[in-house]
């Protein structure tokens, strides 16, 4: 195969796998920010919290990190629901959710980071999955399982979430609360209860993303910082409240970053990826799959 073609194909494939990690990180935010209008800037911090818990549990049990992250989801759902109760009581109910709400989640982020440093230390932690050192080869295309398995789990989880949102009564109520919360009351549905449930789901998704992250790379308390810009960009580019758009935007982000890094140097990757975001917003302000206002 022509070396440049091999470089391009590998750039695209590795970009898709990287997009899987971005999709895992952004899917939960797509629910909280896209559907519930809660600007949870601490979402990557929850992801890192899950990563470090998975690393500790992995060291203690030796179980697969992704399985451990799956086992953590109920606890993270409960944590998310509890945080939403506080957020609703002190900010949303009073109509202070814009700036004060943002400050609240900034505070949550710092509290998580400092608490992690105080409890597990500032060093990097890791969890080695049994498949992390295996790479499948399809001709000249490399498929490292370290990236492939977390991406597969992410797509499976997002698919299940999309089915839940589309096929169940509660799922439809979550989609509806984003559009018209007063209409929900007419159906005798408590929008606060629905939002609590949905915010819990978004934090549970962060737990899964944390499992994926710690398989891909070692993690410390501040590893979430490099994801803040990316996950918001992915959610906005995909179109708020569109899970499918979020996945496609994440894949596009990954491919653009990796192909740029392969041919023009990694320094250009963020500039080109965020340049694409600006282009999308210039021509489709509602994002790729968002509904026009």
């Amino acid at each position, binding site marked *: 195969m022509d*070396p440049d073609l091999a*470089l391009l194909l*590998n*750039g695209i494939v*590795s*970009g898709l*796998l*990287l997009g899987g*990690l971005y999709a895992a990180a952004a899917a939960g935010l797509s629910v909280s920010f896209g559907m519930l209008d809660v600007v949870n800037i601490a979402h990557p911090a929850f992801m890192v919290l899950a990563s470090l818990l998975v690393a500790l549990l992995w060291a203690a049990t030796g179980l697969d990190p992704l399985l451990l992250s799956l086992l953590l989801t109920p606890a993270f759902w409960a944590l998310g629901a509890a945080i939403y109760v506080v957020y609703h009581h002190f900010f949303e109910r009073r109509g202070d959710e814009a700036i004060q709400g943002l400050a609240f989640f900034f505070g949550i982020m710092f509290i998580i*980071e*400092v608490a992690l*440093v105080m*409890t*597990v*230390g*500032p*060093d*990097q*932690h*890791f969890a*080695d999955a049994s498949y992390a*050192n295996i*790479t499948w080869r399809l001709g000249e295309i*490399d498929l*490292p399982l*370290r*990236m492939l398995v977390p991406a597969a789990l992410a797509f499976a989880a997002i698919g299940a979430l999309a089915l839940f949102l589309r096929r169940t009564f509660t799922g439809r109520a979550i989609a509806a609360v984003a559009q018209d919360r007063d209409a929900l009351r007419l159906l005798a549905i408590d929008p606060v209860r629905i939002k609590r449930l949905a915010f819990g789901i978004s934090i549970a998704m962060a737990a899964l993303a944390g499992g994926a992250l710690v398989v*891909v*790379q*070692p993690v*410390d*308390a*501040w*590893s979430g910082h*490099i994801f803040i*810009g*990316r996950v918001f960009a992915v959610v906005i580019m995909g179109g708020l409240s569109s899970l499918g758009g979020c996945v496609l935007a994440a894949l596009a982000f*990954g491919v653009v*970053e*990796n*192909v740029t*890094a*392969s*041919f023009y*140097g*990694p*320094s250009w*990757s*963020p500039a080109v990826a965020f340049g694409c975001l600006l282009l999308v917003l210039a021509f489709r302000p509602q994002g790729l799959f968002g509904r026009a206002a």
Partner: protein
Amino acid sequence: MEGISRRGLGRLALGVAATVPATARAQTAPSGPPIRIGYSMSLSGGLAGNGRPAIIAHRIWADDVNARGGLLGRPVELVHYDDQSSGAQVPGIYTKLIDVDKVDLVVSGYATAIIAPAMPIVMQRNMTFVSLFGTGANNDFKYDRYFSINPAGSKVKETFAKGFIDLAMAMDPRPRSIALVNLDSDFHQRTAESARYLARQAGLRIAYDRAYPPSTVDFAPIIRAVQAARPDIVFVGSYPPDTAGLLRAASELRVNFQMFGGPMIGPHITAQKLQLGPILNNLIIWDVYAPEPTLQFPGIRPLIERYQPIAAKENVDALGYYVPPMAYTQMQVLEQAVKRVGSLDQAALAKDLHANQFDTVIGPLRFDELGEWAEDRNLYTQYQGVQGNGIEQFRKAGTQVILAPERFKSGELRKPYTAGA
């Protein structure tokens, strides 16, 4: 056998009489107001992984000094604040330390990004300043009371990558091309500049020369692009999360280079040593210390032995080979200067630091006119024979051998680097 005369006995008795009180004096508890040493340190944020071990080393030093009777007979007290790994916090911290806390001496926190913002405040107050892991921090200020605890020396461009390039050019067959990959940071830009300069001097063709941003998540495209450029050797500058990503990608892409490494900060930290295990084999790493017989200076082993149990309790770097020896040295240098001068006069301390040699746990050192080490000590080490992910192998000599410089050499270069394959 020579007998002891009555006169000899008298001299001995006089000697004992003179020595015992002196020893007793030295071991008496220090008294009077403490000598306060102030600094900022990164106890949270991205630099905390190295800031916290530094604090442990400082505490061990303070305990040692106080057990020996203190400095100038006074106890030593450390006053430090968390700079959160942010340079923006640093000027405020040093202003408070000097103006409000009235500290007697100041030293720096960890790394150039924290040292540089402290310089204007320290210079304004004419304080002598001993820094920790700053690279070229005084190049622009040219402050004559600045002293650096960093082995890079003042001629970074001419010397930093010399050990690496010299090793490469001594190989048979000699390499013809080199790839340069570095993080887009001040330290790694300087080190890449050194490798670029020395590679050109050695007649190496530069096949790839790119920097990557700190936000990079996937390193496979970088390694793949380097492979496509087909260099014989690869010089890489990176920080811990990137180092793990680069080496993982190198392993997945089955690299095969005659030499691979450089200032890849990462395996210096115990957690990363354990995670990477055999991927480290034949990797060449710039370092400041390794438990090799050629680096066993007085005091280093007791320091490491005292550090490790504390580190285990406080959840910080378990082995402590990277920052703690340098942090302890930072305080040793100050201690020896104060003792020689006999006061806390800042001008006299700076004069003494420029004039004399210091015997430290990392060996003897002298400072040049810029306050950098008069003789650089850029160690190029190679991991050899790493098996599995156990910690014990990293405590032994022979696992991380020193290849350069020649005076500390403890092993021979092994090639190629295949990332554990």
